[in-house]
């Protein structure tokens, strides 16, 4: 049982399509970045966790068995965790347990997807039961949009408020050198953009990207030897919810609240809005960010629209959300959650460059996947618990 820190992070140059690298080369680019950041070589790594989206995203089943050669994984522990959009955080959690238990001292977590290779909405539509609803699916966009509509009616998560999320995250993505979408948008642009699954419109949706992220975790007794600026994982948890349980509550995410509750308790967070200096939230659609504000306790239920309108979640606000630009700058789905964790680590170690929130010491991370039924939360800090 030991504390675990992030001692290195790396990301690829994300792009709509990376024609210059295979899946293996893409992953390696992120790994090289993390190793350089941690001043390590592949020989220093004890164990590797690969996280990626569904196998059908890449035409290679259990792709870690191919990627292992480019990960220096020969004769090492290598395992793949997959959990839809949140898989990067789910992978980090598996790695954290390996380190915390002492199974390994230094674990490399690498998460990726190369979404340009396939037909994304069809691939995601195969989430649906083949007997039950698959024919109506548009990935999970139809689903996500439907419950946003319900939240518009009940919680006031208006199209205008969601548009503000798009505007903010697009603006922040400009400051992030890893972003591949660099486009200023206005509320009007978002509202007038083409409907894909109304009320979700084109500019409510992140890009489709190729990209990878790597993070190196180490145990507290190893950290002093490898990092002057560790980012401590003060809590991390990942919950599930049966997708079609009786009376499933869809206006707030219960698994998100459960994960937050568990992690906040571990990290001593009682007032999230005040105690967090920055948040990195995985928003597959703009409206999800609004919902997360409430689920994570950054505001009260029904106040998400007011929160974004107040400017509190802007870079200059009291709780900047997604200074990286979130998914709007790049969205390689399998990597996205790990990118959020890596970005939080950069923030609390004062390494976030132009997107740095000055003086940030405690960061909130959120991720998720599936039909909004897989939800993870982490707290990352400059200090241990």
């Amino acid at each position, binding site marked *: 049982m030991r504390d675990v820190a992030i001692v290195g992070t790396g990301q690829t140059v994300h792009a709509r399509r990376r024609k210059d690298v295979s899946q293996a080369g893409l992953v390696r680019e992120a790994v090289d970045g993390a190793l350089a950041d941690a001043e390590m070589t592949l020989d220093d790594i004890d164990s590797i966790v690969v996280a990626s989206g569904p196998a059908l995203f890449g035409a290679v089943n259990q792709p870690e068995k191919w990627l292992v050669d480019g990960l220096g994984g020969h004769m090492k522990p290598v395992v793949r965790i997959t959990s839809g959009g949140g898989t990067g955080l789910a992978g980090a959690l598996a790695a954290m347990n390996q380190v915390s238990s002492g199974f390994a001292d230094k674990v490399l977590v690498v998460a990726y997807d190369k979404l340009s290779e396939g037909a994304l909405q069809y691939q995601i539509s195969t989430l649906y039961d083949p007997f*039950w*609803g698959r024919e109506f699916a548009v990935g999970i966009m139809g689903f996500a949009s439907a419950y946003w*509509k319900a939240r518009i*009616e009940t919680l006031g998560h208006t199209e205008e408020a969601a548009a503000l999320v798009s505007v903010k995250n697009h603006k922040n993505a400009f400051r992030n050198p890893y972003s591949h979408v660099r486009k200023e948008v206005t509320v009007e642009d978002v509202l007038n953009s083409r*409907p*894909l699954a109304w009320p979700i419109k084109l500019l409510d949706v992140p890009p489709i990207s190729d990209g990878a992220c790597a993070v190196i975790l180490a145990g507290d007794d190893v950290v002093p030897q490898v990092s002057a600026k560790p980012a401590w994982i003060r809590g991390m948890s990942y919950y599930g919810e049966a997708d079609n349980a009786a009376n499933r509550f869809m206006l707030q995410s219960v698994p998100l609240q459960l994960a937050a509750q568990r992690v906040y308790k571990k990290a001593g967070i009682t007032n999230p809005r005040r105690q967090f200096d920055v948040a990195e939230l995985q928003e597959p659609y703009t409206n999800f960010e609004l919902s997360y504000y409430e689920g994570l306790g950054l505001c009260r239920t029904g106040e998400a629209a007011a929160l974004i309108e107040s400017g509190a979640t802007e870079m200059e606000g009291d709780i900047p959300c997604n200074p990286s630009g979130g998914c709007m700058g790049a969205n390689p789905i399998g990597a996205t959650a790990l990118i959020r964790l890596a970005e939080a680590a950069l923030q609390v170690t004062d390494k976030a460059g132009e997107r740095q929130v000055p003086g940030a010491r405690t960061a909130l991370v959120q991720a998720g996947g599936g039909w909004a039924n897989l939800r993870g939360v982490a707290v990352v800090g400059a200090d241990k618990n």
Partner: protein
Amino acid sequence: MEAKAATPVMMRGEGLGSAPGENPTFAGRIELPYTLTTGRAASVFLAELANHKLVGSRCEKCGDVAVPAQDFCAACGETTAADFEVAPTGALTGFTATPAGVLAMIRLDGADCDLVHKVLDAELADLEVGTRVAARWAASPAGSMLDVEGFEVSDAAAAGEWPQPFEATADVEPVLEQSYDLRLDYDHAFGPYYGTLFDGIATSRRIQGVRCPRCTCVLVPPREYCDACFVRTEEWVDVADTGTIKAFSVIHMEFVGQVREPPYVYAEIVLDGSATRLIHSIGGIDVEEAKERLHTGMKVRAVWKDAEPTGSLEDIDYFEPVFD
């Protein structure tokens, strides 16, 4: 936005054809198109096949070699690149025959490692470890591993000294991308719960759920265990073909593999008497009007197709809104 395929890829197929008759199955099909990126080394290796060159990579750190060339040394992880060429002749180090044909491990002249490929026009009895083989090149190279159609038994000795340093052929374009189609077929079992539900729909438009004895909720589709209570469901219950809209959206987007023609209203509906969500569409209303007039909690009713029942959700054409 993704381009829509000229021929939509269906989500149903013919199945595997292996299911016994007394338990009908749902024939599922997943048929996905890909454009794969080959990476540095493979893009060169595959391109040079057209020039009848076989290219390998050598690790500068540990000396390990790979044919075909790889981006990374499998032994130590060091980055590698295509840097030598081996002969199109070699000897077998191992072989097997499967229903797919004879496959062999081939040690090409000049290589310190094996590659796997087909052995053509040979019976197992003709082969032994050490049998000499030579590449048979495809007449029309396509930038694929099958530009070597396979290897054939040949007494030809290696012509020249191998390995040779690799020099890229002038004007050769690396094969950066390959098209690939993945097709997977399934015979999904209905099981007793879906079986009863869909039989009821087929024979009498009857929609049945199960009741959880602990929370008393009715679950549709029916299942053996209540998700929330993890208690065995016991009692079959008929539910109505009317219900309420739990949530809806309007689908405009087109994509590869799409089954329904957009625009349509995607809806999650709670049938009266049940506590779960049924995914379907809402019809009988213009989609633009739907955006204005539909809202969550609104009543809907199933509109059944006139056609011969199929025992699936497709027997319901759509749900229509019931305006007060």
